[in-house]
């Protein structure tokens, strides 16, 4: 999906492809070697999370297909919660400031990441974006990931919760088609429910059943950012998560997305090493 066109190389991880000339001089340790294959990203993600925790900013990664209503949901959320919570937004898109402009119009701090050709955000891109926001003035940060049900699921950004939107204009079997993404959900939002009367082929029950078959216990809420239906449940979920997060911070703990805390088992025992003599290979 990604490596053929090079879209997996972002401004955030490009440096990994051009090792510094003195790399050979860097000291190796067994611990370093045990690290997993996604380790560069995960290390940066841990740094990002520590930084967010230092300021107590609950950070939500919003993921979905393109056009499922992430930005509209953010607009409705900001309009209602503004004044009660200090909200910031990081927008991820391949091109344009359009989404950031919509959020900026609501007088909320926003930073747009344009990824060029890259189809996801990674921890390095978020690290740079965090430099552009005053975290001391935020309670809640939304990261609107690039619209894509494949790649964003594989990158820990240092955020605390994954929220995945499934709009009723899509197929209700999306969780079965994209199990890696939907398994990562801490909350699934079935969006654009005001259109349900016109889209009788979409069954919210079937969509939730597909989610449950991934052994997910994540709640599935129904809402429409346009009509306002169901938004109260979403705000309730956010409030509960903020309370939970603040309690954890008091105990010097943090919150990680369920799928991250499960671990990628990247730190499993190191590789088995076998040696061959040079003569045998020539």
């Amino acid at each position: 999906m990604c490596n053929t066109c090079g879209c997996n190389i972002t401004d955030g991880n490009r440096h990994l492809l051009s090792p510094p000339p003195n790399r050979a001089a860097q000291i190796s340790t067994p611990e370093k070697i045990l690290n997993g294959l996604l380790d560069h990203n995960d290390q940066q993600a841990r740094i990002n999370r520590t930084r967010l925790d230092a300021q107590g900013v609950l950070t939500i990664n919003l993921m979905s297909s393109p056009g499922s209503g992430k930005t509209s949901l953010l607009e409705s959320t900001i309009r209602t919660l503004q004044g009660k919570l200090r909200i910031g937004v990081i927008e991820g898109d391949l091109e344009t400031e359009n989404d950031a402009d919509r959020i900026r119009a609501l007088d909320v701090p926003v930073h747009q990441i344009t990824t060029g050709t890259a189809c996801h955000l990674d921890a390095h891109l978020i690290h740079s974006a965090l430099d552009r926001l005053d975290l001391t003035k935020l309670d809640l940060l939304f990261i609107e990931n690039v619209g894509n049900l494949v790649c964003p699921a594989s990158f820990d950004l240092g955020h605390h919760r994954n929220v995945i939107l499934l709009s009723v204009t899509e197929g209700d079997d999306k969780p079965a088609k994209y199990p890696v993404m939907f398994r990562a959900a801490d909350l699934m939002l079935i969006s654009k429910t005001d259109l349900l009367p016109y889209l009788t082929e979409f069954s919210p029950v079937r969509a939730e059943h597909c989610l449950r078959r991934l052994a997910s216990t994540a709640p599935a809420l129904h809402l429409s950012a346009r009509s306002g239906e169901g938004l109260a449940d979403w705000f309730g979920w956010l409030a509960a998560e903020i309370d939970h997060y603040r309690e954890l911070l008091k105990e010097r703990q943090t919150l990680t997305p369920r799928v991250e805390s499960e671990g990628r088992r990247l730190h499993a025992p190191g590789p088995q090493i076998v040696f061959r003599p040079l003569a045998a290979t020539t």
Partner: protein
Amino acid sequence: MHELSLCQNIIDQLTDLAKLHDAVAVARIEVRVGALSGVEAQLLRNAFTLIQAGTIAETAELITEETAPRVTCRTCGAESETLPNNLSCPVCGNLDTKLIDGYELILARVELVRNED
């Protein structure tokens, strides 16, 4: 997903391992790719051929072992292989399972070439 940058990470690890063990080349590596890891084994193999050029692993052979999801059922205790998009217990049908395999991305085995002189 990001097979190209993952391959760069593999090369970094191989470079470190070769240095640690005074190896002159990497002959063969095995990577375990879980069905729910978000990594496509075929794409990983393709990307590796691009990235290995000019590195210690220039002539290394990459073997991928694809692993299916395995779950243990929290109700009946059975351990079973499942499909990526149906992690319910195949024995009792319960949805409350724990994924124990199929999410991993592991460099499992490395064969290094050493000058025995």
